[in-house]
């Protein structure tokens, strides 16, 4: 007799071959979507949001593209997720990881169609991933000891990362900026200390790195525009009406004169607070919250520069830069640490006035001012620079470096091929498939650049059969070139993360043999 329905009405269930097919297709569709953005000649995508205003984003960054997509296919969601994690963890390689996972699944589909059990494929992939990782480990170069070389490594990595982004025209300039900024961090991965300010106008070339700190605020009227040897108090306190915090307190008066008295008392309270703040012996006061006119006037009278409403991040960064502490009470002026800097002045960038702090105590922080023709260009430049900064800061910690331009993939593919030849049984087919997927990455890079990918990859393969070969795809000239000579490098950490998470994701999707989709939660019609 017929089995009654087990699941709820709108829920659907897909089994076996069909389920596998659905997830393969979903994952490959996602991979194909971002495929064309890979490599130095990759193309950009325009994303238009469905929200109000229909904001437009132009980007080349895999994670940004995938984040903005509304996807229904569960397997595709897995890929979106790995790209997001890649972004959080190492910052770059977000496209490669999705493309590699997609290629692994594409190869797996062929194997499944020729009746090889997914579990066999998985165990083959695992062995292959291990072999690939070991191959990379053997080839890494670590120049941590040699400061000069290390810097040039960083420079190369930054250039390689930036060459696939909108900044590629001025990559040398920006690579210099990024390396300078990261070197100032002295090994910490805290990218908060690097501030990026975007100001439309000028060209990308006009972007610059500033050693000090730039706060996007205006100086109050009637206050000094330039302070030398500034003593700065960074605060987070209410400078509007300092209300009584005891619960349930309220003012109840019976005559107008009393109102006036209380108002006077309030004013007095504020005056005392301001006096206390001035008593710290400062000449610059920066508050996170609003500063009302009355205290501002008092500060102006005392010749103190008061800056209101610096946002929270700004305050933290400012405290970090100037070495002061964020204060909220002002009773012990002698023990509060004040921030110092040599010079505060108002500067103009384009049309806007900004406040510039230079000669700060902590040399870690710096500001990168990006200039560009439009907001979209600036946003994309920001993302690209962020990628470069992330990669660099990770590389400072883990200084192992590889060559780029498809070189690591060739190395891995070669090693994996060797393994396939040695492995008995059906697994070897899966291992071979893994190496094919690895080769897909240089193929796509070449394809995107409009080159003859089959020819190039075949040439590369031949080259790589010699020991100690540095050959990779030189997209600019469209031929096989020496990557070491061309100065194309990549961080080992990024490559490793790409390899491992792509394999993990492929494995996860392969293991699935049934998809159960619950009925979507009903949303109330807002019509």
């Amino acid at each position: 007799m017929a089995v009654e329905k087990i699941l709820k009405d709108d829920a659907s269930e897909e089994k076996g071959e069909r389920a596998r097919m659905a997830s393969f297709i979903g994952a490959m569709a996602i991979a194909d979507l971002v495929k064309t953005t890979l490599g130095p000649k990759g193309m950009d995508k325009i994303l238009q949001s469905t929200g109000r205003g229909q904001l437009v984003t132009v980007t080349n960054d895999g994670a940004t593209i995938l984040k903005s997509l509304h996807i229904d296919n569960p397997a595709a969601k897995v890929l979106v997720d790995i790209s997001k994690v890649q972004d959080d963890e190492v910052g770059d390689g977000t496209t490669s990881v999705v493309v590699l996972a997609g290629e692994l699944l594409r190869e797996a589909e062929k194997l499944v169609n020729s009746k090889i059990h997914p579990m066999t494929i998985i165990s083959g992939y695992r062995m292959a991933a291990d072999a690939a990782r070991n191959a990379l480990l053997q080839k890494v170069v670590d120049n941590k000891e040699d400061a000069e070389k290390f810097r040039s490594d960083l420079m190369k990595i930054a250039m390689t990362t930036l060459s696939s982004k909108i900044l590629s025209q001025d990559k040398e300039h920006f690579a210099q900026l990024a390396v300078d900024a990261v070197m100032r961090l002295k090994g910490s991965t805290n990218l908060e200390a690097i501030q990026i300010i975007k100001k439309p106008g000028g060209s990308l070339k006009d972007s610059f790195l500033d050693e000090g700190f730039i706060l996007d605020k205006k100086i109050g009227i009637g206050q000094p525009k330039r302070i030398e040897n500034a003593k700065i108090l960074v605060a987070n306190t209410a400078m509007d009406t300092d209300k009584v915090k005891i619960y349930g307190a309220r003012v109840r008066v019976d005559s107008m004169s009393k109102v006036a008295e209380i108002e006077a008392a309030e004013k007095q309270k504020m005056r005392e607070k301001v006096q206390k703040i001035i008593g710290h012996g400062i000449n610059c006061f920066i508050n996170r919250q609003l500063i009302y006119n009355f205290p501002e006037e008092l500060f102006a009278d005392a010749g103190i520069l008061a800056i209101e409403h610096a946002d929270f991040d700004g305050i933290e960064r400012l405290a970090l830069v100037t070495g002061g502490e964020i204060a909220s009470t002002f009773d012990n002026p002698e023990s509060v640490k004040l921030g110092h800097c040599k010079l505060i002045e108002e500067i103009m960038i384009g049309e806007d006035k900004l406040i510039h702090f230079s000669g700060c105590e902590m040399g870690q922080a710096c500001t990168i001012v990006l200039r560009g023709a439009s907001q979209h260009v600036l946003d994309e430049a920001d993302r690209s620079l962020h990628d470069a900064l992330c990669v660099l800061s990770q590389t400072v910690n883990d200084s192992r470096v590889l060559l780029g331009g498809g070189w690591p993939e060739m190395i891995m593919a070669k090693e994996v091929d060797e393994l396939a030849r040695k492995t008995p049984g059906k697994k070897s087919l899966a291992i071979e498939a893994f190496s094919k997927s690895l080769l897909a990455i240089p193929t796509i890079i070449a394809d995107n650049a409009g080159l003859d990918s089959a020819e190039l990859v075949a040439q590369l393969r031949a080259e790589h059969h010699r020991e100690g070969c540095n050959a990779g795809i030189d997209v600019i000239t469209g031929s096989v070139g020496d990557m070491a000579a061309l100065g194309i490098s990549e961080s080992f950490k990024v490559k490793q993360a790409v390899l491992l998470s792509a394999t993990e994701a492929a494995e996860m999707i392969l293991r699935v043999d049934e998809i159960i989709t619950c009925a979507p939660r009903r949303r109330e019609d807002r019509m």
Partner: protein
Amino acid sequence: MALAFDEFGRPFIILKEQEQKSRLRGLDAQKANIAAGKAVARILRTSLGPKGMDKMLQSPDGDVTITNDGATILEQMDVDNQIAKLMVELSRSQDYEIGDGTTGVVVLAGALLEQAEKLLERGIHPIRIAEGYELASRIAVENLEGIAQKFEFGPSNIEPLVQTCMTTLSSKIVNRCKRDMAEIAVKAVLAVADLERKDVNLDLIKVEGKVGGKLEDTELVYGIIVDKDMSHPQMPKRIEDVNIAILTCPFEPPKPKTKHKVDIDTVEKFQTLRLQEQKYFDDMVQKCKDVGATLVICQWGFDDEANHLLMHRNLPAVRWVGGVELELIAIATGGRIVPRFQELTPDKLGKAGLVREKSFGTTKDRMLYIEHCANSRAVTIFIRGGNKMMIEETKRSIHDALCVARNLILNNSIVYGGGSAEIACSIAVEAAADRYPGVEQYAIRGFADALDSIPMALAENSGLQPIETLSAVKSEQIKENNPFCGIDCNDVGTNNMREQNVFETLIGKQQQILLATQVVKMILKIDDVISPAEY
């Protein structure tokens, strides 16, 4: 049917609005129920064993879960059928009671139902089948005890425990590093176990996950990890020899529960109130400082002023720590949770050797590690992995492994896995069947056949010939009188599960058989299903 007549011949209605309800009676009802139960079991059948496949589940909100854990699959499946819901309950109770074997129990119940269907077709009364199953399950459980082995382990010899956890983990996606995971689970359980009383409180083991890194980076922390950071960005990120004050009162002005109003009508009052307020903040911080605390962990928020005062007096603090975490911290550090500042005393402070903040990746994620605690009886397993689904699945797998380790500490008897225990039971039940004179004999035989279905499913999922393999193993067991022969899922080359080190807990297996039998009995006893019509 539902219409009856009273003594005057007037009809009266037993079932209200009968025409709107669908109703199934008698054999039809039983068959429909069995079919539903079997359908659920069929979904899980492919997930059984080390080569079992995963299921991908999409929740009503579009979130994706990929899992191999029977209980999780059924729970998220959005089941509508009543009998199917019973099966979901079955798997859940196995999860609560044992924590592992949630797939196996449903597959077994499905097989029992299948056998029952055949018996029903032969005209055997369902109650007789139920009784036969009951008898058979008793034989099987006794037999399990017979073939079970005790093994010795101690804090120094954890190998047997690790091996058993590995058997559990080998069917999950984490089997790539099952050895590490199993060791972590066993060490965690041993750290919180009370070996004297044979008691393990799994609440003391916290499982935290964070995306990024790789599975191999998963670690066991003898202490607590809290997903919070210091309240003030400039507080020290690393403190040693910490005295922790654990507070459940906010660093804010007091809020009496009764409704009240403070009226300010003169300038003096305004000023005194102001002074009081300042003093209040000062007192709070001073009290913490006075008792010698070097770190304050608070369940509530801080006022800006209080925050700065804390910072100013060199007293690092953490705010908005959840209640459960607070309790764990209290247990781990040996401190007491203090609800009021007045009650702070030095002996209520918790002690920890090291508190440090650790940041991850390129985003601003930070976590607080509290380590080297006075009382190391609370531990945290910190999972890393490539993506969110991986972390979630690893959490579930670790939970299973933890449960298995705990069960072994409660009762150190084990049986061998790979279907060997089921085959041994099946042989024993089959042999016992002939001794029963009644109709039950058939039901008992049916039970034996149902037990065979687990090794059969294992063989099938591993790509072996199910019937061929099963009969070979069965004859081997009888010939050699060796109950350790099972299905060689990993293609190692031997059928002896003892050599392969594939163990399962005795109570887990017994529980599986008992629970499955109970549910099947319940389903068999239903002979009338009344459900409201579609509305």
